[in-house]
């Protein structure tokens, strides 16, 4: 500690340790934030329901999405990534989970919205089991913090049945 370079070294090291502690505590406090997400989603129209050349079925649709994600934002939230997964069961695969729409919410002011969009990614099956199939629409979200642990959660929003014939 007898030269200023040594003192600077000590100071920077200790300051960096405390900075890590601050970030850790900020992330720890995020764990106490109980968020409740509200939302509805409905399939306005099935736009396409057909068999691809390789035999797999493919569906595209228009969605009406209304979400309120404001409670997921805390002071330590950088952004929230949401995606809508179509989930269904087939004989081949017990769990099928296909992302059909996603969105990045940059801040709390944009966390409550209503939008009508075509599905961003087609819903495809491994095979052809989709006729008349019940599809659950589940909203998943990843809360990305400025520092610390990422929080994931999901909420089933609604379900619908695919038509019995190709469109």
């Amino acid at each position, binding site marked *: 500690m007898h030269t200023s370079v040594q003192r600077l070294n000590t100071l920077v090291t200790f300051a960096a340790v405390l900075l890590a502690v*601050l970030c850790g505590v900020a992330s720890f406090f995020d764990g106490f934030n109980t968020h409740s997400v509200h939302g509805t989603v409905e399939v306005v129209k099935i736009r396409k329901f057909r068999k691809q050349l390789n035999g797999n079925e493919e569906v595209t649709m228009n969605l009406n999405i209304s979400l309120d994600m404001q409670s997921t934002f805390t002071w330590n939230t950088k952004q929230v990534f949401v995606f809508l997964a179509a989930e269904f069961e087939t004989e081949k695969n017990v769990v099928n989970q296909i992302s059909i729409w996603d969105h990045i919410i940059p801040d709390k002011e944009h966390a409550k919205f209503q939008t009508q969009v075509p599905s961003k990614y087609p819903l495809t099956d491994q095979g052809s089991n989709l006729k008349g199939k019940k599809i659950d629409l589940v909203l998943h979200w990843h809360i990305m913090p400025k520092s610390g642990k990422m929080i994931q959660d999901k909420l089933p929003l609604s379900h619908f049945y695919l038509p019995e014939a190709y469109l």
Partner: protein
Amino acid sequence: MDWQGQKRAEMLMQVMLVVFGVVAFVVGYSIGSFRTMMLVYAGGVTLTALITVPNWPCYNRHPLNWLDPSEAEKHPKPQPVPSKKKGGKHHHK
């Protein structure tokens, strides 16, 4: 910087950094701004550096009392006893 100055500077550095860390967290959390926390902490670190890194006069109030150079002349440094062995290249204690 003398011995007591070094001790004081180190103590002051640790206390100030911890205090600024706590203040930064409380302010940032209550305002709800992560950015504010970082700015307050950065300001605290800079202030602490200004106070504890340079060799300020207040850290030099307890100089060591070295012996006067004349004392050294009164008590000359003992010279090593020359080896009695003729032509000996080995030194003995």
